């Protein structure tokens, strides 16, 4: 077994899996993207200069691969929408993934947050997951996303605001959107 894979797997696999899973919310896709991350890590480890920590380097790769996946999905979705002319009602199509068992047994608040994470943009979602689930500092999050510290702060602020807005709207309506 490749020693680089072994090292990264033993040190960070769980965190990596959590991050990608919450980004894409689908186990099969998650497994696929995790494989791509390891391939990229093994291929480009020689070029890792050690300017950031290994973990932030790994997460910047993970984030790139996930965003790339979203871009491809968006292009695919656009082609399908154009084909079926669903532009007008496309927003009614809901996320079909079942709630994972681990989330389903948690309280309403956790389930609601899980559900509304998708209302955030991929960048906002990345910031929330990196900051609060993974416990990265603002500085580290900025390194992973390759943006300034102030940009992280703004994105984080907007993401939380967005989540709050949807959650309070749901409370007012007394149901799901």
């Amino acid at each position: 077994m490749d020693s680089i894979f072994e090292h990264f797997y033993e040190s960070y696999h769980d965190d990596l899996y959590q991050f990608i899973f919450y980004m894409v919310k689908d186990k099969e896709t998650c497994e696929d993207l995790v494989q791509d991350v390891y391939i990229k890590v093994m291929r480009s480890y020689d070029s890792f200069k050690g300017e950031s920590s290994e973990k932030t380097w790994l997460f910047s790769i993970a984030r790139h691969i996930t965003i790339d996946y979203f871009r491809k999905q968006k292009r695919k979705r656009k082609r399908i929408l154009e084909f079926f002319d669903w532009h007008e009602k496309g927003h009614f199509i809901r996320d079909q993934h079942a709630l994972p068992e681990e989330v389903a047994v948690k309280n309403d608040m956790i389930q609601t947050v899980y559900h509304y994470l998708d209302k955030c943009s991929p960048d906002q979602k990345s910031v929330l997951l990196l900051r609060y689930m993974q416990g990265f500092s603002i500085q580290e999050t900025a390194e992973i996303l390759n943006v300034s510290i102030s940009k992280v702060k703004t994105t984080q602020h907007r993401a939380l605001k967005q989540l709050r807005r949807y959650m309070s709207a749901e409370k007012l309506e007394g149901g799901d959107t």
Partner: protein
Amino acid sequence: MKKPNSSEDRLKEALSQMPKIHDHQDKDVLFQRISSKRRQVQGRQKKKRVAIMPVLASVMALGLVLILVPLILNEGVLQQNAGEEKANHALDRAKTSKEESGSRETDQESGMSKDSAEKEITGETYSQLDKVPESLVIHSKDTERPIVHGAVADLQRQYVIPLTLVVPAAVDKNDFLNKLGQYVQEDRWGTSNYVFNNTSFQLDETNQQVVADFPDTFPIAEQGSNGPYMLERLLTSMFRPYQVEKVVFTEKITIGKIGTVKELPLRHRKMVYKSYQSDEGNRSFLIEVPMNEQADFTAAITEMKKDEKGFHVSGTVPEAADLSVTVEGEELRISFDTEEPVPHGQELVTMIDAILMTAKNFGYEQVFFPNAGQEQAGPYDLTKPINVPRGANPISPSS
């Protein structure tokens, strides 16, 4: 002012308490998938690079044609003249020869060669049509004679190829177990070497264990992290069919990162069976590909459709086959979607072989194909449930 802050705090707290999602994928399986994917990507890149060559070659060929065509045309005129002269001479010679020996002989000769050519073509075609589909398993009806299980790795040491040797009823299985290496033809089969040539096994089915005397140097146990994993998989494949739960070593043995041990537990793992044939090999084998432990049989069927070209492994269930799975006790029912064509001949027999072996691994005893649309496929009677086989990849002292 306080309210939004407190709701924000609750939100942050909820985010930090999001549950951990369990990754059920085994580390070794993950690594195998990564290696396979890596090879596919490299293969694609190579193909892209190679694609430039035909374009360049075509351009150069076109250039050459443009230069050579005028020359050839000129030469062609000269050759045509010379050719006509030669033809005239030949005609003259033929006339003379016909006059001398008569025409009968010539007619007979040409008639014979036509006959033999016809015979050759027909023979070949019939041999293809008559080819009986080959089954890669030992069927459950052959229960009289005991069997000995062996195992080798594929050439890239990613997967295990189980082997099954039927032995005479009166002999001690251990005798054959310890000379199994004599029957393994790695070079002809295109597999890795049989690693237990200098190992002595004593199968103790009563105590569900096998006692193994390993040689002092045993390289596979030390080969990186894949070596110990492969050693464990080979032993599992050879001895789990006898319900053996552990290998007891006569002396402590160091097995890579597993460490120095006196015993090695053999745990059952979910496997699907795909087809393996290397470029160097003269036969194909069913090969064990590990599955996620949570996988059900529908997931197994999906996995069995996947080729792994980098490892010379191909799927045993055709990509287009739409199969649905239902379970009735220990019987598995595999139905074909009637709108898709059901596979035939060798493809169908290999698919049934692989499904039966996979079903056996998943703990089922019988498999029924209720709407296969044919009553017989190779050795299989499809009108009733089929018992799972005794083992895969039969070998014989002369194979």
